[in-house]
Structures are given as C-alpha cells and as structure tokens.
C-alpha cells in the first residue's frame, strides 16, 4: 500500500494532528512502509477464526452499581488545565 500526500493529510486531519510541510514526506514514506509490512496478514488463512478483542477467554467487562464513589476534586484536577475560569475549562469561541 502506497499512500499519497493527500492521504496523509486526510489521516492527519481525522487524527486532529497538525503535520508540517517538512514532516509530510517523512510520514508518507513511513506510513506506506508500515501498511505494506502489515499487509502480510492478508496471506493468513483466518477461515472461521473469531476476531479477538480481549486476551482472556470468557472474561467480560464488569458492571458496577450506579452509585457515586468519588468525591468532588475538581480543583485538584483543574490545576492541570491550561485555562480555567469559574471552575470551567476555557476554549476558543465555538459559536460566533
């Protein structure tokens, strides 16, 4: 699989990553190589094999009772935020 510059630009947009002009050819080359490398999987005879999402057979994700177990620690958590006002996370204007 060989990707084009436009492919990589589209992937970068989907992934919300800004890629510079200088970086672009490097990713075109390395992503193409990685996709070609993983394409050897096409030759595998997977037949009726089930897709495997979890390494432990029969293990299912647990549910818990819908009760609050955490106390309010927003001040501590928001100490890591780039911009906070009135206990709210601040982002650029979304609606004009």
């Amino acid at each position, binding site marked *: 699989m060989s990707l084009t510059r436009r492919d990589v630009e589209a*992937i970068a947009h989907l992934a919300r990553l800004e890629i510079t002009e200088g970086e672009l050819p490097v990713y075109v080359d390395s992503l193409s190589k990685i996709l070609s490398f993983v*394409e050897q999987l096409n030759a595998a005879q997977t037949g009726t094999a089930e897709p*495997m999402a979890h390494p432990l057979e029969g293990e299912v994700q647990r549910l818990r009772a819908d009760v609050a177990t955490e106390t309010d620690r927003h001040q501590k958590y928001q100490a890591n935020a780039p911009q906070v006002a009135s206990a709210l996370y601040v982002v650029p204007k979304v609606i004009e």
Partner: protein
Amino acid sequence: MSLHRRSVAELAAGLAAKEFSAVELARHFLARIATSNPALNAFLTVTAERALADAARADATRAAGKAGPLTGVPIAHKDIFCTDGIKTSCGSKMLDNFVAPYDATVVERLAAAGTVLLGKTNMDEFAMGSSNETSYFGPVRNPWDLAKVPGGSSGGSAAAVAARLVPAATGTDTGGSIRQPAALVGISGIKPTYGRVSRYGMVAFASSLDQGGILAPSAEDCALLLGAIAGFDPRDSTSVDVPVPDYVAELQAPLKGLRIGVLKEFFAAGLDGPTGALVEASIAQLRELGAQIVDVSCPNLPLSVPTYYVVAPAECSSNLSRFDGVRFGHRCQSPRDLMDLYKRSRGEGFGAEVKRRIMTGTYVLSAGYYDAYYLKAQKVRSLITADFKRAFEAVDVLAGPTSPTPAFDIGAKVDDPITMYLNDIYTIGANLAGLPAISVPCGFVGGLPVGLQLIGPHFGESRLLAAAHAYQRASDFHRRVPAAYA
C-alpha cells in the same frame, strides 16, 4: 558486600536484621543517582525529599514491630504511573507540565507495602518505542556501554536497576517493554498475565495489551515485588478476580519434571548467532537441572509483529484522543479556533513516533479499511492465541530468546520504523495472547547482556518465577554489574 550490590531480597533481609536503616539505604541510592544519572538519563524526576520521608516512616514502622517484607526497600516508578503530587510525563512534551492528581493502584500498593520512592524513570514517549530514543527528555544510555540503547520502552527503569541506582523498578509491557530492556541491560523482568496487575492510573497506550510489572536483579526479587502489586482492583474493569499466590514460597517448586517447550519459530532467521547459542546453552542447563525439553511450534507466531502493528496503533489512536489541549497537557499558543487548538496542541505535544502510530491507527480503523486491517488482525490474534493454547497442552513453559540481538547503537534504527519494530519479534506474542513472561540474563555477547525468555500459561507466574529462580541458583549472570557501577 556494598549495599547496591545486594538483591532486593538481600536488602530486605539486611533491613530486617537492622544491619542498616531505611534512611541509610535511601541516602546510599540517592547519592548513586546524583553521581551517575547525568550520564545515564535514567531518572526524569528524583524525589529525594519524599524518599527520606518514606524511609523515616519505614524505620518507625520497623521500630514499632510492624514491618512487612518490603518495608524500607527503595524503588522507582516508570513515569507512566500516576504519582499524586509528582510530575508524571510519560516521556512526552504533551505531559511535561502534568502533575498527577492521584496515585496509580501499583503506586498505592507499593507505598502501602512500605517501599521508599526514589523517583520516576525515563521511557519511550507514551511507551511507544524499543530503544528509549523516542523520549522527549532524551535517550537513556545502557550502563554496559553508553553508546548503546538500553531497550524500551521501560529503558529508564532497566538502566537504573542495571547500574544499581535503585534496587528495583516498575515497568509496563505492551509488546515487550519490560522484557526487552531487562534483556538488553542484564536484569530480570516480568510481565504478568493480562489483568493480573491493575492498570488504574497507568497511562493507557493499547488497553488490551498493556500490563504493569517489575524489573529487578533476580527472579526472586520479581516474586517479592509482584506479590505486592498483583491482585484484583475494582477500579480497573479488566482486572481479574483471581487469588494471588505466595510467589516467594512457590519459588521453591522443583524444576525436575517441568516440561519446557523450545519454540521453533524463535530460532529462525533473524536471530543473531551468538545470542541464539547462549539461549540454547541456558536451555541445556535447564535440562541438566531436571527439566524435560520438548520441541514445539506455534506456526502463526511469525505474524505477531504485523498483527501488533495494527492492533496497538488502533487502540493507541483511540486512547490518545483524550489529549486535546483542554483539560490537561500541552496547549498551543493563541489558537485561532477549536480545531486549531486541537491540531496544534497535539501536533506540538506528540513526538514523531507517537504521531506515526496515531495515524496508523486512525487509518486502519477508518471506514473502508477496518475489515481489511483491523478485523483481519484481530482474527490472526485469535490464531496466535490458539497456537499458544495448543502448545500449553504439551508443555508447562515455553522458552526462547527475549530479543534477536544484544543492545544496538543509539541512532542505529531511529530512521527505520520496521527494523525497530522487529526488535519485539519474540516478545509481542505473549502480549497478544495475554500470557505472563519473564526475561532473565543468560550470558554476554561482546560484553553486552543477553536474555532468556520464559512464557507461561495464563496465571502461570509462579511456574515462570520458580524456573527462573532455579536457573539463577545455578548461574551468576544476574549478579554481574557493569564495572563502572560496581
């Protein structure tokens, strides 16, 4: 014997016998870090004050007659584990300003066991790398040869233990990130069964593969520390509620009669000759010690690297979408709008390898390619897992090399992702199948350590540790320390 040449088990015995105090021990290792870390770059954060406070508390606990087996033992955490009030960078510019607001379960449990925290260790960015060269904070150097990589992604933990700057450290292993660096620096490292150790507070890379574990000089040390971190945690939805055995007591299980399977696929093309010869010699030694050696094959195993490089990037692209420049982590200067904020914050905050994996994952999960790549890889993952299951019907443990070569030069593989990915050719299988695996030192090639890998069935940690312990009672590679750090 000088303090830093002792294993964790020997240090614990010395503390119990009041040969030295926890404060003396902490000071000894902090002094070693101050001397040697500038060249090795193994620690990103040294928590000297915290260490001395932990140590004073450990001494008080002992004086009160309440000490446990690990009370006063100094440790370090890979910088992927959240530590309340301490910077947790994950080796990334994205989290260069992040002070974790809570402790990971692993951190909490080791603190409750009375260990002394010396600091946080360097790592490949977001644990994506096999050489520790993707760290935003610069590469870690291999204590056996400063021009070589220490392996990755837990390269800082590995180098710190190998240079005896700390007696033991935590690590995480998604595709080999505990075992491969342990092999490349000549120490022991165990990746437990998926679900054995809580992932709560461990920054997520590929959630169906990630597992926390231990790097330490010996298998006995791994047993001591694994017992402290393993066990059910309701805060991790994939944590498994299976009782934790007494790993230390079970170290004494005899090797006699143990069926060890030699994996044919692990001795194929690509394995460095002298490395393979040492691994074969160590397997022969296990036979002399009473194990039964059987040849086995897992025919789909050669597909583990391409399978991993679909599954892991897919999960990584999803997990790392949380870094949006809004709630924590790096934010770009003066964003024009929300899209610009997302794109530039992420573009600036992540390094090249992380971006490469996010984009690979985004691509294989995208409409039109999902079936061809992601679903196909998940089916091959089933085949690989079935191969292992079949093998464990005939043998108790599988054996082979940990890494195809000894440590390579810093810079040698950075420009070629595929060559770099192939470093993990022998370690990835255990992650795909969720199996426990350990690497132990089994010799040297040109002055550089080589690792023997043992893989067990689900929850077979005791068996692996006992086999590795039996080997280490008959060998001394795990006791060797680079001359500059002796």
